[in-house]
């Protein structure tokens, strides 16, 4: 699916640019985006290093495992393939909590840690495991209790009640999460991992 979407984005973009007679836009956009992508990754390095360092202390001290153990009754339903008390669970909890609090910067490194732990269980395959798909379904549709950025923009534009949208956001996210979790469950049980292509 991703292969098709990626190709579609590129091909339709280039065709439209050609038909509109501004083909030079394509090269500008492509080269600019390639540079931006590296910048995004470089900006991540420091934040990643900070939180992965802190995570290491929590992990070696047994804090992550404790967190995973405490939330196991809930997590084992969502992630049946991850063993109880596995560090992946602890990282998942931290990622989702950070997401809910609107701490995007801290959420990403926690999420990477969770992915690394799940990749270990996945045997280093280049194909997503069921647990990863569930985690990302939760992550992308996760409730943000404090949508800080958008509230900030509303404040700066002189809103009478900048936080009035929070209830609506929570309602809409709950709908999204419900669909994500049910669809993930359905697809997990209906599909099988592809065989490795030679």
């Amino acid at each position: 699916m991703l292969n098709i979407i990626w190709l579609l984005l590129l091909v339709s973009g280039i065709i439209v640019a050609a038909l509109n007679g501004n083909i030079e836009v394509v090269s500008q956009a492509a080269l600019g985006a390639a540079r931006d992508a590296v910048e995004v990754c470089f900006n991540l390095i420091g934040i990643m290093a900070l939180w992965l360092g802190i995570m290491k202390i929590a992990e070696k001290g047994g804090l992550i495992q404790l967190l995973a153990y405490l939330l196991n009754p809930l997590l084992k339903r969502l992630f049946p393939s991850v063993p109880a008390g596995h560090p992946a669970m602890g990282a998942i909890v931290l990622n989702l909590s950070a997401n809910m609090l609107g701490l995007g910067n801290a959420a990403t490194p926690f999420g990477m840690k969770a992915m690394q732990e799940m990749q270990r269980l996945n045997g280093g395959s280049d194909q997503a495991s069921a647990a990863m798909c569930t985690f990302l379904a939760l992550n992308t549709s996760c409730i943000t209790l404090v949508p800080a950025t958008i509230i900030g923009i509303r404040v700066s534009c002189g809103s009478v009640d900048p936080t009035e949208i929070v209830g609506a956001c929570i309602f809409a996210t709950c709908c999204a999460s419900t669909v994500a979790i049910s669809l993930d469950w359905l697809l997990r049980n209906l599909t099988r991992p592809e065989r490795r292509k030679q």
Partner: protein
Amino acid sequence: MILKMLDTVSRWAIPFLLLAIPVYGFLKRLPVYETFVEGAEEGFYTAVKIIPFLVGMLVAISVFRASGAMDYAIQAIMPLMQKLGAPAEVMPLALMRPLSGSGALGLATELIKIYGPDSLIGRMASVMQGTTDTTFFVLTVYFGSVGIKRYRYALLTGLSADITGLIASIYVCNLLFN
């Protein structure tokens, strides 16, 4: 009240973690600084590992946007979205949201500035921005960091959640604010 509390929690969360975890490690007799550095080392490799994935994805999205192909896509879904009760002005934001975080934030800010934060359009833009995440970015970065190339059904689930969030945002805004 609850919001004020949540706001305080999110303000204190990072300092709290930075305090609690190292102190906890120290009490557990860990060499805290050495352990920190050992973990931090992974930060660089993880970030670098994402580069090829992100370059691929951002280039495709950027070409799609800049060429004007995205505007045609917006025109195509316009009648459907208007049936759902969305003003034409929020269309570009709706389509941008799963593709590009910074792009969506820019569009939302513009809509809030032009139409005012307390107009229907301004509120709808706020809710859309506050509801869903940038699915393409999240999948690219998270899968990229561990070298996953085949996403299976993850993209389908993520995009279905986005569409649901979008429709729910339109519905709830019309209900509450119109």
